């Protein structure tokens, strides 16, 4: 495991390059330092996971990368260009599903197709094809037949799965997932790990995944970043060397469990120090 975050210089080909970023919310008494000199670099086609205690700034980091807000200090580069506003190449699954209540589940999932090129201009003429794609995606997360339901008629976990579909439908180059499986039971979750890994291996987009589940992180990611409690810093980074595709059985292999424990220990030491 890499010892210090600053010892993690961005490789020149980093697709996502979070360079010494700090973030301050609010002013006066409600001033909160959410991120403190955090640096992360994800190569093109890489799969990074970020773990860290609740409130340490993981979601904030995701929003910085997609350009939803500017960092207070430091710079963020995606695909070589400094991020100054919302990206057009990203797909994001927020921590809350945030489905638009006036759209059916299917229409929610098709939303990115109405925005992102080249789909937006093709959508009208190829609607049937795209609907088919959306329905296939729904089926892959176990929601076949729920496309015509309203979002509030879905259970919490179903909403989260729909939100995951929405982040994938337009085949983004950069996928940002903020605890996408938190509301799912272990089995559904593990099934979706497999689905995600498969899609990723086929298309090799770049992924940043925030999760609380270390097994999930190790199963899915190439490299795992551990954040400290607020203000969030990167306190460790760990490569996961296992070959792909990884299977659920692999997660019970000793090397796998070792990495999980290593991360676990690191975090618990970090907590004790704080």
């Amino acid at each position, binding site marked *: 495991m890499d010892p210090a975050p600053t010892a993690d210089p961005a490789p020149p080909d980093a697709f996502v390059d979070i360079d010494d970023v700090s973030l301050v919310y609010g002013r006066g008494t409600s001033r909160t330092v959410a991120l403190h000199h955090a640096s992360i670099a994800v190569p093109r086609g890489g799969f990074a996971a970020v773990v860290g205690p609740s409130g340490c700034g993981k979601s904030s980091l995701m929003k910085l990368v997609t350009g*939803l807000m500017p960092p207070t200090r430091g710079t963020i580069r995606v695909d070589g260009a400094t991020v100054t506003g*919302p990206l057009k190449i*990203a797909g994001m699954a927020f921590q809350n599903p945030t489905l*638009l*209540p*006036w759209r059916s589940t299917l229409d929610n999932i098709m*939303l990115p197709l*109405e925005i992102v090129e080249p789909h937006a201009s093709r959508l009208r003429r190829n609607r049937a094809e795209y609907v088919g794609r959306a329905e296939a995606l729904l089926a892959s997360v176990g929601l076949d037949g729920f496309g015509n339901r*309203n979002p509030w008629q879905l259970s919490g976990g179903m909403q989260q799965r729909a939100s995951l579909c929405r982040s994938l439908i337009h085949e983004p180059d950069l996928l940002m997932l903020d605890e996408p499986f938190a509301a799912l039971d272990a089995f559904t979750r593990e099934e979706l790990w497999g689905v995600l890994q498969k899609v990723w291996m086929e298309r090799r987009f770049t992924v940043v995944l925030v999760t609380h589940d270390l097994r999930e992180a190790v199963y899915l990611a190439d490299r795992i970043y551990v954040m400290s409690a607020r203000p969030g810093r990167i306190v460790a980074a760990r490569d996961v060397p296992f070959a792909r595709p990884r299977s659920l059985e692999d997660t019970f292999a000793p090397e796998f469990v070792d990495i999980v424990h290593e991360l676990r220990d690191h975090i618990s030491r970090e907590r004790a120090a704080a």
Partner: protein
Amino acid sequence: MIDDLPTEEETRSRFGRAALENASPVIIAIVTLIVWEIACRVFDVPRFVLPTPSMIFASLVKWHAVIATHAAQTLYTTLIGFAFAVVAGLVIGIAVGTSRLLYKALYPILIAFNSVPKVAIVPVLVIWFGIGTIPAAITAFLLAFFPIVVNVAAGLATVEPELEDVLRSLGASKRKILMKVGLPRSMPYFFASLKVAITLALVGSVISETIASNAGIGYLMLNASSRFDVPLVFAGLFVVAALGVAIYALFATVETRFTGWATRAQTARLEGTGGG
């Protein structure tokens, strides 16, 4: 496997209640009219102060042909004014609701303008546009656009940032965010404002017609009132009210389509969730 669960029939909402609901405004209206009739007779209210509904009805019947042509004129100017008000209300509302500078800059001006009774402005309009349809439609427009502006602006200003972020994270343009989130989210506000706007458009038309017109319910009413034909004046009022309700009924049907997602609590409460 699913054996004894209630069938379609059982979960269907009770028909009786729906019928009562639909009849209720008619019932209330009829009761009001009866009370009015009786009160006028008991207290011997003179006809030129407040005619009884039966007199008004007689007047309606007697003059129905004339009233119909005048009502058509009023409906025409009202709908023109209302249509422009919807468009302008949306445009200005969007401007005010999405830009804080415009909010701060335009609101006081709009308030100032709308605090002014439009009756005072009609003469100026008449001098520029002559009497008739144009000043009436403009007056309808001037009265009706402001509530739409206010509500559209309020709707847009209160959009949850989380919903906007969904679109922003896709790199959507401001316009797309407005079209896909801002406006749909503001529909409940917008439709609420239409209810106020349509009544104001009617009031605007009629008022303008009383000041300068050769046709329309307003013309008819002023004409009647200067002849002391108070029942006909009230017949005119009834017709205007009926026009208002008719236009409302028209867009109330559209409303459910656009705001059903927001009023789902009420719908659920009525239908019962899941159970008998």
